[in-house]
């Protein structure tokens, strides 16, 4: 499969694939691939869903520091909802959000903490969700881009991004938004230079930086932010 950042179905020249897509329609590329996987057409399932689909029940997991285990129970709070889950210990927070919870807003760009597309807020602080394990965040409050909107209403920051056309392909946008929300909260949005410095962990290969900075600046100027001096 060609690497394409969009979540939406993409045109493909293969006729057989087209036919399959039509049969499965209406569907997204993701659900299409899932169905292929469950039908055994694709060999590998994402490692992170193994906890759900493993034929053997997971071993009793350590409640405290007693016994190390490779499948671990944890309760994670994501966007205000509590999820008691069992995951493979090696599951990153990013994979957990995307594969186990289906919260695919957070993107896997580099998977090495370099691009910022996976940025989420943990207890209000931005981190790269690709470089942390899901099980490490028991009891933490996690906010993803899906949690920025309230009751189907986009946040003012998201609104500013749209008005300023602060993206092209959109692949980095979820990370940019979470990072921008934190940047504003930290009080690091007082000038263009400051925004550029404190948003430097979020790369945009389309080069929408001037518009991203403009959106953050406008939001900052219009909205007094708590915690800012």
């Amino acid at each position, binding site marked *: 499969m060609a690497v394409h950042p969009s979540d939406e179905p993409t045109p493909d020249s293969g006729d057989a694939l087209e036919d399959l897509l039509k049969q499965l329609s209406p569907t997204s590329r993701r659900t299409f691939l899932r169905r292929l996987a469950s039908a055994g057409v694709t060999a590998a399932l994402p*490692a992170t869903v193994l906890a759900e689909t493993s034929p053997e029940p997971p071993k009793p997991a*350590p409640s*405290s*520091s*007693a*016994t*190390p*285990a*490779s499948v*671990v129970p944890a309760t994670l709070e994501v966007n205000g909802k509590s999820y008691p889950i069992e995951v*493979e*210990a*090696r599951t*990153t927070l990013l994979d957990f959000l995307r594969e186990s919870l289906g919260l695919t807003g957070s993107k896997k760009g580099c*998977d*090495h*903490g370099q691009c*910022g597309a996976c*940025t989420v807020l943990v207890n209000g*602080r*931005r*981190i*790269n969700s690709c*470089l*942390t*394990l899901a*099980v*490490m965040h028991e009891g933490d409050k996690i906010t993803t881009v899906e949690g920025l909107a309230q009751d189907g209403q986009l946040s003012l920051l998201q609104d500013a991004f749209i008005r300023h056309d602060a993206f092209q392909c959109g692949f980095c946008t979820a990370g940019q938004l979470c*990072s921008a929300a*934190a*940047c504003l909260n*930290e009080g*690091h949005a007082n000038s263009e230079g400051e925004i*550029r*410095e*404190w948003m*430097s*962990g*979020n790369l945009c290969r389309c080069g929408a930086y001037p518009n991203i900075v403009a959106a953050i600046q406008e939001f900052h100027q219009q909205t007094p932010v708590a915690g800012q001096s």
Partner: protein
Amino acid sequence: MNNFAYVRANDVDSALALIRSRPKARFLAGGTNLLDLWKMGVEQPQTVIDISRLGLTDIAARPDGTGLRIGALARNSDVAGHPLVVNQYPVLSRALLSGASPQLRNAATVGGNLMQRTRCPYFYDPAFPSCNKRNPGSGCGALNGYNRNHAILGHSDQCIATNPSDMNVAMAALEAQIRVIGPDGERVIPMGEFHRLPEDHPELDTTLQPNELITAVDLPPMADTKHAVYLKVRDRSLYAFALVSVAACLAIENGVIGSARIALGGVAHKPWRVPEAEALMQGVSPDHSIFERVADRFLHGAYAYRYNRFKLTLARRSIVRALTVAAAAS
């Protein structure tokens, strides 16, 4: 990426007991380096011991003006923004803020930063067959490879990697003391002895012993906080590792330098200090010619490779520049 067993340690004693009892076990704190290396296949832990909930996050003045103690699990962003660090150890705050990204600094810890491994691509990517650090005895891919960001000081024919940390450079200039605990109890390692030169054992980055855990970093009081500079030169203005960096802490009274502590980053397997060069500045008035003499003495014995010759000039100019800025600060 291999699977591993996970366990959360609830206190220092259980963390130490766990690491002793499990083969190929690793402490996991912020995860920004260990998990990255695990994904690359460089690290293949069998057990990961999560130490992120041990506490050890306090940043507090020590009694009787004896300095500052920073918990090993304090986040880089918390250290950089702490008023005691900003006001009393500004060089540390600036070094931290010049490193990585806000997201990484929110996760990375002080102890983890001390343990951060080299970014030498021959080490970081197992697709390269030769790396004495990753696979002792396999050779050094960088020696005759693309060695643009490699060492010019203290290297051996076994390894020419550099320590990538900005924090470590500031810690070296501040003469930090690393507090560790292990099977034989607690001990303190001076920052200058914490990181090793590669010599014949480049696989050993530090003098930390197996099954030891870093608990805190102590900073002695700084006599003069005004004349302290962290200068970082890199390929782009933000979010890049240093080509060369300089932490310079001068104590200047009545126009005369009382003491100078300078550490160089990006040039060696550890933050590079030269006490003889620093001594040249003692008791003299700061001026350009003394800065140049210091820089020359600092780089005595420097040796560059095919792609990093520019570092010889860059390091010299960076030292002079950092000292000029530090001395002129008011």
